[in-house]
């Protein structure tokens, strides 16, 4: 009897102790990342492009714009595919092809981003003989679609079947039911899913390595090479100059902020869905 009590106390201490320690470590890591980045934020940082070699200062406005454009375009490309695939799987739940589609979405989600980058290069950049932001967006779309499809499917499955049956009973066609009932009901959840997927692709670097090429200049044209925050961070982190390394931290801070905002809005929407249920 007492052996078990001893074990209980010991294990309790071990588990609690190590967990608390670990949580503290994680908190310190997070705090360090935030503080390193926040320390050197300046107006210049947000508004100027990088300075040429040897000159101090400069900023990452070109990368901020690039991240916005590339992410939004990737989401634009991926949303129709993702949502409609999600609709398809939800409507045909239980059928073998739908299961295959779901399986493929899962598989696609697990493909390492570097492989996606290679595909982006061989399929688009090499074929069209030019690095471009569009190539980057298309590559990111490959990562955007499966997560969107899964979220859409799951949210649609939550729509009470009673609603749909009532609509059918009233003589509505399938497409009408899907659009007016399922989607409109699930809209908040789907939007939340879209935002979450966007927050994920915004931070991806590997697909950009072989497609976006990077650029010192502010670029609005999607058919040209473009910079982006993750890419800029990677390049600056590998440089030996403390000023550039500092900019890497600050750029990381901006990127995390962007991702957090997307996730925050997404979470707010989900909680609204859950509250209504």
């Amino acid at each position, binding site marked *: 009897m007492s052996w078990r009590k001893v074990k209980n106390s010991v294990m309790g201490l071990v588990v609690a102790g190590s*967990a608390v320690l670990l*949580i503290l470590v994680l908190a310190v890591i997070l705090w360090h990342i935030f503080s390193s980045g926040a320390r050197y934020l300046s107006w210049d940082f947000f508004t100027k492009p990088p300075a040429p070699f040897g000159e101090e200062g400069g900023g990452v406005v070109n990368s901020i714009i690039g991240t916005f454009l590339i992410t939004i375009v990737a989401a634009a490309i991926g949303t129709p*595919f993702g949502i409609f695939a999600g*609709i398809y799987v939800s409507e045909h739940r239980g059928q073998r092809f739908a299961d295959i589609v779901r399986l493929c979405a899962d598989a696609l989600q697990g493909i*390492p981003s570097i492989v996606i980058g290679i595909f982006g290069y061989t399929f688009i950049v090499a074929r069209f003989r030019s690095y471009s932001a569009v190539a980057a967006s298309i590559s990111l779309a490959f990562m955007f679609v499966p997560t969107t499809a899964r979220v859409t499917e799951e949210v649609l499955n939550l729509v009470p079947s009673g609603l749909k049956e009532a609509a059918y009973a009233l003589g509505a066609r399938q497409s009408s039911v899907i659009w007016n009932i399922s989607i409109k009901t699930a809209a908040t959840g789907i939007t939340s899913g879209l935002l979450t997927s966007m927050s994920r692709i915004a931070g991806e670097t590997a697909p950009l390595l072989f497609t976006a090429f990077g650029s010192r200049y502010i670029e609005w044209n999607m058919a040209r090479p473009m910079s982006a925050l993750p890419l800029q*961070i990677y390049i600056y982190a590998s440089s030996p100059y403390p000023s550039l390394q500092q900019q890497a931290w600050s750029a990381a801070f901006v990127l995390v902020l962007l991702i957090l905002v997307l996730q925050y809005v997404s979470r707010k929407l989900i909680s609204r869905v859950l509250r209504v249920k």
Partner: protein
Amino acid sequence: MTAQLSPKDRQERVRERAFTTAGLIAAVTLVATIAIFLVDLTISSRGSRSTFGWSFLWHTDWNPVTEEFGALPMIVGTLITGFGSLLLATPLALGIAIFLADYAHRRIVEPVKYLIGLLGGLPSVIFGLWGLFVLVPLISKFEVWFGHAVGSETLVTAGTTGVGLLASIVLLALMILPYSASLILDSLLVVPNELREGSLALGATKWDTIQNVELPYIRRSTVGAVVLSLGRALGETMAVTMVIGNGMKMPGSLFDPANTLASAIANQFLEATSPLYVSSLIELALILFCISIIINIAARAILRKRTQ
């Protein structure tokens, strides 16, 4: 009444058709994408596949000068970092999850969950940044100390820069920890309280309950979480690329620099000038692709069985 469709009916029919077609197209595209990836990678790597055949998988030489390419150093690097980080992270994830589910004050569970989720959502390149400037110097200090402690000059030399397998394992462990921990925590929270109470009522201690009731209950989802984390660890690119040190040779110890399949590609793809070099790198991608698909499907299958 027969035939003539009102314009409204026709419109609805068209929309109906459009909707079904759109759904089908999207679904087929998803499936086709996987197929296209596989085909594209296979075709693009035919140069190295025909030159080296299956021996590509166990050749240890990766030499761009002599055009001899073997994937073994990268495969070994991938497996060591993948399983190493899993070994390190899983008990830690279990510990955190058990702590939060059974020991912690109810009110700190949500904020801690949020904190952990925040960390887990950080982009890989930011982990790499932190790893390069914070973790690597620490690891270097440890490795040099360890080398002196065991009296091994080679270890001390290898540890001078800090980059290498050990740094990658620790960094990867930190990256997969949050996801693992939250999966396990979620499944622990679902354990019916009656089971817990029943066990305690029978005179079991808290730890007895955890060990004999809760853990077995979540065994399947723990395995699923572990496999998913392995999947993520195996495919992780940027953070590993930044701290693994780019070794082209088989690593001799954990302190040595190495490469994973992903980091080798990230580092060399844009500069490979000969067709054989390029196709060898693409073959690495093909290997990585297959590994990740298998692991991912296995993980989801395990996790889904739990709910049936």
